[in-house]
């Protein structure tokens, strides 16, 4: 059952091969079921704004009192979009699976329900430094599915683990040496032998750690990325990037090292890294100074010298003491096509063409109204919040989070953007989300919210977009919201 028999569009169907990358008005893969008639029809851009986003589900406690351990720290769809994994600060991973669609109601989308829950990481104690190692899951990345089981990598600050999630729906009965309840039988009492038979049982989903990749990072791991060769992956911490083979846990290759000989000279750290989706020798990493370096592993074993260097020249008129901090890149993601990459800094998302290093091809303001409040945001540490960003399946739309449980969507074709909110108040099934607006000054209109009223505790740092369909998962502290586009 585990995903084999399903005729789904998505991973194999040409999205990732760049057919739909970046183009204007391209349609999504026609074999993706459940796509609303409107979007599949004549040339309607599969963007974020011509779609009407609706509430689908919310997972998590309603309690006002949020337990720290329940705060979601990462969200990721698998390659087919049938599985959605979340990691939290308590070191747990929860995987949701999309239900098979109801044949009698072909227009209703499958819901995501809990498939498996397991404790991935436990808190540890570093004896040498007398410091705790947090169990918080920093990132989850799925491996492409190769057999009935599912595999994912999950990491905390120091250790990466490969988990196998498999289903068991049969049980062997009729053992000779033990009873049904497991008690050993006395061999002398056995007078006849029988062959155990397999009997069906209630479906059980088991998660087991298959590999533990430890002791390779002195600093905190911020990224992991599976290579397109499906055999290797990289892990990046503040100062180093290591390359691993999925089968080998006692060895990793260091491919980037920016640690200065004298730590007092340290002025820049690595903030994120990712492999190119198609070229297995290419990866990028971003820095706290707002730069991105693209490296080719064929050029040398240690990729300290980049092949390409992406940096936007600074605007001298907006220079301040906070310029560097807000330029620090918190996330970098390649487009599905592999032709573009997107970076998130504190106030904006930028889309870069890999062939142009001098400046981004697009800059989208996420919450420019915060620019005048940077000093306060520095004081309360919000300026260090690391927001992620993600691409829609066809690369024509991008999404990122903001404060007050707002998240922003940008349609690259129509150049329109919208602010939406993840809140329990808008949680009637299939209720459309109403666009939100932040009032920046002057008279506040009805339904607008003023900058001073924004709740900076409610931050949407982690979002994920289904690889083929317009389904998004938004993590709001301890709640996971799932939104879908309206089906006509």
């Amino acid at each position, binding site marked *: 059952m585990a995903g084999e028999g399903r005729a789904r569009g998505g991973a194999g169907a040409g999205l990732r091969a760049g057919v739909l990358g970046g183009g204007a008005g391209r349609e999504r893969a026609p074999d993706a079921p459940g796509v609303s008639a409107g979007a599949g029809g004549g040339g309607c851009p599969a963007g974020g704004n011509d779609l009407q986003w609706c509430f689908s589900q919310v997972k998590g406690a309603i309690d006002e009192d949020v337990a720290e351990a329940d705060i979601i720290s990462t969200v990721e769809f698998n390659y087919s979009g049938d599985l959605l994994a979340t990691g939290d600060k308590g070191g747990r991973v929860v995987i949701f699976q999309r239900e098979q669609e109801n044949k009698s109601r072909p227009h209703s989308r499958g819901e995501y329900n809990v498939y498996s829950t397991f404790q991935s990481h436990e808190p540890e104690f570093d004896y040498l430094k007398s410091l705790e190692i947090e169990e918080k899951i920093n990132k989850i990345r799925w491996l492409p599915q190769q057999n009935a089981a599912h595999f994912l990598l999950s990491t905390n600050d120091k250790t990466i683990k490969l988990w196998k999630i498999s289903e068991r729906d049969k049980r062997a009965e009729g053992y000779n040496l033990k009873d049904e309840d497991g008690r050993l039988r006395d061999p002398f009492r056995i007078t006849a032998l029988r062959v155990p038979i397999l009997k069906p049982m209630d479906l059980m989903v088991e998660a087991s750690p298959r590999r533990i990749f430890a002791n390779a990072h002195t600093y905190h791991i911020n990224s992991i990325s599976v290579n397109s060769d499906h055999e290797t992956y990289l892990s990046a911490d503040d100062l180093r990037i290591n390359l691993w083979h999925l089968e080998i846990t006692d060895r990793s290759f260091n491919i980037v090292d920016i640690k200065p000989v004298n730590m007092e000279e340290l002025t820049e750290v690595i903030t994120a890294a990712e492999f190119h989706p198609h070229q297995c020798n290419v990866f990028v990493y971003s820095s706290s100074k707002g730069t991105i370096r693209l490296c080719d592993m064929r050029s040398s074993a240690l990729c300290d010298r980049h092949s390409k260097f992406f940096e936007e020249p600074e605007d001298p008129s907006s220079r*301040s003491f906070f310029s560097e901090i807000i330029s620090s890149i918190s996330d970098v993601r390649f487009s599905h096509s592999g032709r573009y990459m997107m970076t998130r800094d504190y106030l904006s998302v930028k889309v870069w063409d890999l062939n142009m290093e001098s400046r981004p091809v697009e800059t989208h303001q996420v919450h420019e109204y915060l*620019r005048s409040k*940077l000093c306060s945001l520095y004081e309360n540490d*919000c300026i*260090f919040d690391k927001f992620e960003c993600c691409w829609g399946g066809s690369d024509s739309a991008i999404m990122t989070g903001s404060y007050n449980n707002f998240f922003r969507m940008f349609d690259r074709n129509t150049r329109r953007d919208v602010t939406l909110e993840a809140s329990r108040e808008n949680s009637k099934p299939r209720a459309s989300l109403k666009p939100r607006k932040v009032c920046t000054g002057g008279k506040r209109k009805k339904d607008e919210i003023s900058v001073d009223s924004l709740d900076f505790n409610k931050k949407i740092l982690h979002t994920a977009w289904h690889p083929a369909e317009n389904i998004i998962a938004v993590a709001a502290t301890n709640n996971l919201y799932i939104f879908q586009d309206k089906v006509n």
Partner: protein
Amino acid sequence: MPFQDGPAGAPRSGALEGSEGRMFARGLKRKSSEDAEDADGGVAGLPAAPSYTLQRQSLLDMSLVKLQLCHMLVEPNLCRSVLIANTVRQIQEEMTQDGTWRVVAPQAAGRAPLDRLVSTEILCRSGREQEGEGDCPLPDPAPGQAPRRPQSSPWGLDGSREGRGGFQKSLDHIFETLENKTPGSVEELFSDVDSSYYDLDAVLTGMVGGAPTGPGLPAFAPTAAAPPSSTCRSDLGELEHTVEILVET
């Protein structure tokens, strides 16, 4: 190098004072009565902007406090520390050019490396107690500021992360300074530290009673096997936890 101003057309004000004074941290120490007037003015209506130098000094103070305050048991975020340190350097450079950066000790001359900048602060604090307010350009002691931070800022954030316990120095700094100090002054250094952590720390490094264990790591097992005597007033649960870890149950 100006702070960010508000959007064009908004009343020209510094970054520390917005058109609504309540948005900015009340925990920030005001330097003079002149500023008290500014603060009041801020609530009432259009404020007089504090001078640029004052804003810059406040930012420097804030940054140095941030560098000192770190999670008690978890390693501080390196990216955050580097960004704050770079901000401090920027301010320092500008102040050096202005001629407003007064040198206290030889190691603070010119572009002081980050580590020494922070250690100077610790040393400055204990030294200042004897000399009174010296010409140390570094800010007031951290303990004075953090606990005073109000829990009810309009943004609903509590600075609990930074005000937690009294453990405001990273263990690295403590160990570094401890190497150079006599056992007597250890007391001073830990005087504002929550005693339970002092004891935790002492247990782990075997420094209780001043018994020198030599350079490098002390032998954990023997020290841990005998929990500290009645001098330890710490939470029993914490001690148990520590002992458990050390004997690897």
